[in-house]
């Protein structure tokens, strides 16, 4: 029976420890104070997205890409180093909103790489627009984001309509499927992509040959039964790698022999691991990005101590656009935004130029095949 006093203190400490949950960090890898030079020092890029929580892996891939770009830039410009301020929203639009206010209030931030998810983009776009801060997202693919009339929002990744159409024409043209089956995971990204595939398949697609699963689901026996019963010869899965891998594994185990195709959300080494090498072989993954140069991953690893993954190359390209703007002397939000809008160049994920809505103009879609237990990232086939 300790003294009430001690218990009260302990209780207060525990309560203090308590709500150290929800929402994440701002780690500021700050810029060093530049010496006399013709550039402003202490500038930062911002990243808004999920770096912790269940979707943290994707956000960390993106932060890694930004850090790689900054590492290159800071080595070349030791007098005006640029840092990155990471704002972890855990992919939650509610948490993203106050973070957006914080970002626009921070005058050292010249541009935002992000948001990571479409939900956060829709919740925060108005704030960035009102403040005039230029935004380049490496991964938010929902089509409606660029239909909001925002002039500061851009993305370096092709939106779902281009990818879906390309996948559909591949299924009908190259594979010559007569009975395609489309599955999605109910998420904004997966459902969106699948709906464009269905649209592209047109009359060849029978709406009975579709199903929706849930993210986090691990047993797909009902869906697998549906596929085998329908005698489908091609399956397209709109969703992410964890479910895709388990789904293709269970499909193969049930005797399905047709094509398995998925989108860029499945392009992660964990897809092959979850499927088991044999089941993954022959799977085709589409992506609106060409193969990264061979040394990208090794350079990434040397800066970040972990392998690159989904969206690392897009984040790298997005950061480089802002850095090119700084090189060109653009410092105000309005100038930088004009620079970004007019930018045209080649990134590691492909050629980059933005149309007037903020979408990437040219979006060549590539198909990557899993061969011999590995995703063949060196030889994709352009399919659009």
């Amino acid at each position, binding site marked *: *029976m300790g*003294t*009430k006093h001690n*218990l*009260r203190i*302990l*209780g*207060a400490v*525990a*309560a*203090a*420890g*308590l*709500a*150290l*949950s*929800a*929402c*994440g*960090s*701002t*780690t500021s890898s700050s810029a060093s104070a530049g010496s006399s030079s013709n550039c402003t020092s202490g500038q930062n890029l911002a990243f808004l997205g999920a*770096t*912790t*929580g269940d979707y943290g892996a994707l956000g960390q891939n993106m932060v890694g890409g930004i850090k790689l770009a900054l590492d290159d830039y800071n080595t070349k410009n030791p007098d005006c180093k640029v840092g990155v301020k990471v*704002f*972890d929203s855990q*992919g*939650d*639009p*509610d*948490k*993203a*909103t*106050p*973070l*957006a*206010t*914080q970002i*626009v*209030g921070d005058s050292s931030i010249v541009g935002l790489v992000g948001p990571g998810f479409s*939900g956060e983009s*829709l*919740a*925060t776009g*108005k*704030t960035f*627009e*009102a*403040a005039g801060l230029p935004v380049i997202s490496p991964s938010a693919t*929902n089509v*409606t984001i660029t239909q*909001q009339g925002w002039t500061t929002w851009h993305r370096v990744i092709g939106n779902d309509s281009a990818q879906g159409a390309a996948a559909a024409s591949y299924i009908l043209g190259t594979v010559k499927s007569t009975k395609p089956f489309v599955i999605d995971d*109910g*998420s*904004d990204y997966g*459902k*969106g992509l699948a709906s464009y595939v269905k649209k592209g398949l047109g009359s060849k697609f029978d709406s009975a040959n579709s199903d*929706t699963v*849930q993210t986090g689901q691990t047993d797909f026996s009902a869906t697998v039964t549906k596929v085998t019963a329908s005698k489908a010869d091609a399956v397209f899965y709109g969703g992410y790698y964890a479910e895709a891998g388990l789904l293709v594994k269970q499909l193969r185990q049930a005797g399905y022999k047709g094509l398995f195709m998925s989108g860029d959300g499945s392009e992660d080494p964990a897809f092959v691991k979850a499927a088991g090498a044999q089941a993954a072989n022959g799977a085709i993954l589409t992506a609106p990005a060409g193969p990264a140069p061979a040394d990208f991953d090794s350079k990434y690893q040397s800066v970040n101590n972990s392998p690159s993954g989904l969206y690392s190359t897009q984040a790298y390209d997005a950061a480089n656009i802002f850095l090119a703007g700084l090189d060109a002397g653009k410092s105000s939000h309005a100038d930088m935004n004009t620079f970004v809008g007019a930018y045209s160049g080649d990134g590691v994920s492909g050629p980059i130029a933005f149309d007037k809505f903020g979408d990437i103009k040219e979006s060549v879609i590539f198909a990557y095949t899993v061969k011999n237990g590995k995703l063949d990232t060196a030889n994709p086939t352009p399919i659009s």
Partner: protein
Amino acid sequence: MNTPRRIELPWLRLRWVRMLMIGGGILLAYALPLLRPPVLTTTGSDFGGVLVAMTSYALVAVGLNIVIGYAGLLDLGYVGFYATGAYTTGVLTSEHAHWPFLLVLPIAVAVTMVTGVILGAPTLRVRGDYLAIVTLGFGEIIRIVILNTGWLGASAGIKDIPSPPSLGPDKVGTDQDGLFQIPHIAWRGLTPLIDNEHKTPFLVFGVLDAVPYYWLLLTVLLIVLVADYLIKESRVGRAWEATREDEDAAEVMGVPTFRYKLLAFALGAAIGGLAGSMLASGQGGYINPNSFLILLSMLFVAAVIIGGAGNRWGAIVGGALVAYLPERFRALSDWRLLIFGLALMLIVNVRPQGLLPPRRTRRALRAKAEIEELEGEAVDA
């Protein structure tokens, strides 16, 4: 060991002193986002936005406190009511109709209340522990239905939800916003300075400034607190107390326990719906199903228990802390859920009655301590 004594402050006995303190406290609460006090202000995220989250959670906790604290019903699916309020608002103001927000707000509250009654009627007949899993199930059902239904926006969510109506012109980002502008206070060390670069317009609900939303939420919270006080002191509150302490005895004494439990459920739902509606018309104007996960229900329950179930001030403190601490200590983000779990275990072990336990628990604990002192040894509960 001495029996713990109540703190005696003679001047607190004066009613006008108490009124002054309460008035001062309320004024301070309103001024907080403008004052931006040094240690308290969150640096990683906008302080105004964090205050909005704190007040939202506090409001939710007050509602959940009625269910868990007053009526003794363990509800693990409270997020369902939060979602119902938010989505009713979203559907009626943006997705399928464009009714004004002030009209939709009471409708959302009413719809959520009806949902509470519909959910409560079958589930409250079920035994205490089962109530937990059934309410959890209902919370998930609501979320999954929203996720799977295109009419409700599905996973894409509902956007462009209008904010509450503003007073004065909305010339965002300029000096002509609102009726008048209030500058913030910036601190250099311990010296306050008037910061004319950051001003809050009165009263414009725009996209750049969270402070007016905070003021609105605070006002709503105060109104709900008054209502809560009135209900608790009435026979309804007494019926809840009787039901919670010993349901069979209450029934025997003629209290229609089922009806009162259902009323608690409905009122809790109404407040949850109110908070959800304010969330929908918040600064972002966007809602989607991922904001309403089971984890949030757990967080709300933890907020009420940590704050002190049965005490409305405890609920407010619990809700505010649960929203504030993660934002204040953002640097520890990777570890936050682990710290949350460990802290939960620690708190219920060390201070199971919560930070601000209700008067009856304090009385019971005091009585227990007195008995232990008399008996000279620890007494089993």
